[in-house]
């Protein structure tokens, strides 16, 4: 079991909760689980191809992760918008 932390509109769409305990051996599977448990977030983190959107960053225990990064039990997985603007 890992803890997925979301903020901003993702938190609002996920029932107002910022932390979600979920199972998933990799970042991608964990995020699929998150969207499945919180259907209003579907399409916000993962695109139609099933990939993490380009400007969404994921950190596993404070280390930058990618889709296939393993998620150890008890990990804290942060989903954070990237730095962008204009």
């Amino acid at each position, binding site marked *: 079991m890992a803890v997925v932390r979301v903020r901003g*509109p993702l938190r609002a769409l996920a029932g107002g909760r910022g932390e979600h305990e979920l199972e998933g051996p990799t970042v991608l599977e964990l995020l699929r689980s998150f969207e499945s448990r919180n259907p*209003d977030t579907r*399409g*916000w*983190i993962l*695109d*139609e*191809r*099933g990939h993490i*959107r380009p*400007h*969404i960053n994921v950190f596993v225990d404070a280390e930058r992760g990618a889709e296939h990064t393993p998620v150890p039990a008890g990990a804290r997985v942060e989903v954070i*918008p*990237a730095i*962008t603007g*204009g």
Partner: protein
Amino acid sequence: MTELAVGTKKGLFLLEGDATGGGGEFGISARAFAGEPVDYALRETRSGRLFAATTSPFYGPKLFYTDADPAGEWQQATGVELPAGGEQTLARIWVIAAGETPGTLYMGADPGVLFESHDNGSSWQLNSGLWNEPSRPDWQPGGGGLCLHSICTWPGDPQRLAVAISAAGMWLSDDGGASWRRGNRGLNPRYLPEADIDPETSALCVHHVERSRTRPERMFMQFHGGVYRSDDAGESWTPIGDGLPSDFGFPLKVDPADPESAYLIPLVADMDRVMPDGRVRVYETRDGGASWTPRGDGLPAQHAYLTVLRQAFASRGSGPGLELYFGATSGELFGSGDAGASWRTLAQRLPPVFSVAAA
């Protein structure tokens, strides 16, 4: 009272005012999606529903709607996505148009896709006929992406549709969108070698198309270098750009009461997308494009190098009281309540304007 829904780089602005009244700016009545790019917004007049299409740099394109206070909660429309597990993703929503049957709406988006809704825009389905068009793998995007930006319904006949895609050209349907064929005869893409032009396969960068409501076979097109008219419902096109200071531009409007009418906002050229001579002018034809008249009374006449984007030109009403509105990337908004005879500045210092719709 006229309401303008203005999509900007930093949110949706609703403005209200009287187009026919004296001078003065329209008032901002509401702002929503603060900080978010709102690519397109529309008050659908049959249902009264307000739509806003956003493209968050983080979360992708989304369509929202509200039937209540625009400063309050919005609902996210469902089905606004491409088939899961494919190789493409929805990149941007470009336009929404009312269909000819109650509750039906169409929506154009990048990558060259058409959606339709039969519940006033709450839920949407991808038009499979266009999505599965065999030539799709060969379609090329324009500079703004592979955008389906113009949707022309046929008054009273929901089976007849026309859409324009940059740069996949014109597409026509006679069966409600089940199947599509090209409508590009006569278009001259000056950005291609002449010997290579093929109306069936060439990349045709259509910028905007409008259909006459009173003579539906009459259509006007702003092309990427070229202005055209069709008198056979989009099957073929005749150039009508002579008399304009430039035949490059993006938006186009027509007077619904006059099939001979069209309004354009020319820019210098594709390599210099600002108003010619630093003067803000709208060009009007009332003879099907045989002649063009500049309309600039009340618009900035010097040192005004503005850019007006594809969806940033709107109309309301018809005839001598036709209201026209356009916004620029400079954040200025202009309007006319007398079919372009006179203009006034309605807002200044908005964020860059992406779209304008009037209701």
